[in-house]
């Protein structure tokens, strides 16, 4: 389990990509960012991350420095990657379908963009977002105008 912090010290040297003329290093943060971008584009994903991460994310959004790897944690080996993602799904989507779609999107993105093999993508759906959650206006008040 690798924690995602702004300055990750862990990185991976991919043997397959190293040639006699140098080596390629891919940071964990690159992998988690790619996974995050792929996951948040999936239909039915409202947000990535748990409660605390999303509260912090709201502040980051306000100062326009969105953390694209929010809710994503990766474990990068020599040639393989394992990913854990926590997300909030949009009601009324089928949760298993969202999870499968996210898993597919993340695997595709990492394997094509990074070129490492994905062993597993574990997904935690920690909340469901209802459209009515954004509705702060009192219905009685809305009727007045």
């Amino acid at each position, binding site marked *: 389990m690798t924690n995602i912090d702004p300055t990750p010290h862990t990185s991976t040297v991919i043997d397959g990509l190293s040639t006699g003329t140098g080596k390629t290093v891919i940071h964990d943060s690159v992998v988690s960012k790619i996974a995050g971008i792929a996951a948040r584009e999936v239909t039915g994903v409202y947000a990535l991350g748990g409660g605390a991460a999303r509260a912090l994310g709201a502040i980051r959004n306000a100062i326009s420095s969105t953390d694209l790897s929010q809710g994503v944690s990766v474990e990068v080996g020599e040639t393989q990657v394992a*990913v854990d993602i926590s997300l*909030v*799904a949009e*009601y*009324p*989507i*089928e*949760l*298993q379908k969202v*999870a*499968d779609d996210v*898993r597919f999107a993340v*695997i595709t993105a990492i394997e094509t963009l990074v070129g490492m093999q*994905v*062993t*597993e*993508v*574990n*997904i*935690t*759906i*920690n*909340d*469901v977002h*209802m459209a*009515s959650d954004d509705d702060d206006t*009192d*219905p*009685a008040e809305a*009727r*007045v105008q």
Partner: protein
Amino acid sequence: MTAPPGDVPRGRTRITTRALTRLIARVTADALAVAADQVTVGLTDAAGRLSVHVRAPIGIGALTGPSTGATVLERAERAQKHIRHETARLTGTDVVRVVVQVTGALIRSTPRRPQRAPRAEGRRVL
């Protein structure tokens, strides 16, 4: 809550109790015509399957208005089937039973004037 193993290649899917609770509360609320925050959801494990217990009032149209045609008992029974079906469909969990406990009735009076509209919840009668 974990998805049935074997179905999903390369990784597991976990649905937290919070997500499950909120989803069932919403499905119940829709079925009983009340707000989701009026629903209390209890989840218990029944030998690996999900047992659901929901407590909520039932929303009823104005008693003087046109009848909806179904009795409270019929609606509760329909809601029970709906909750069971929708929970299974949306979460992919194996729902063994759903208990619907109707705790009261919310009579909805239609607002007469736009101004000074009554609260959307209407009157609560036990």
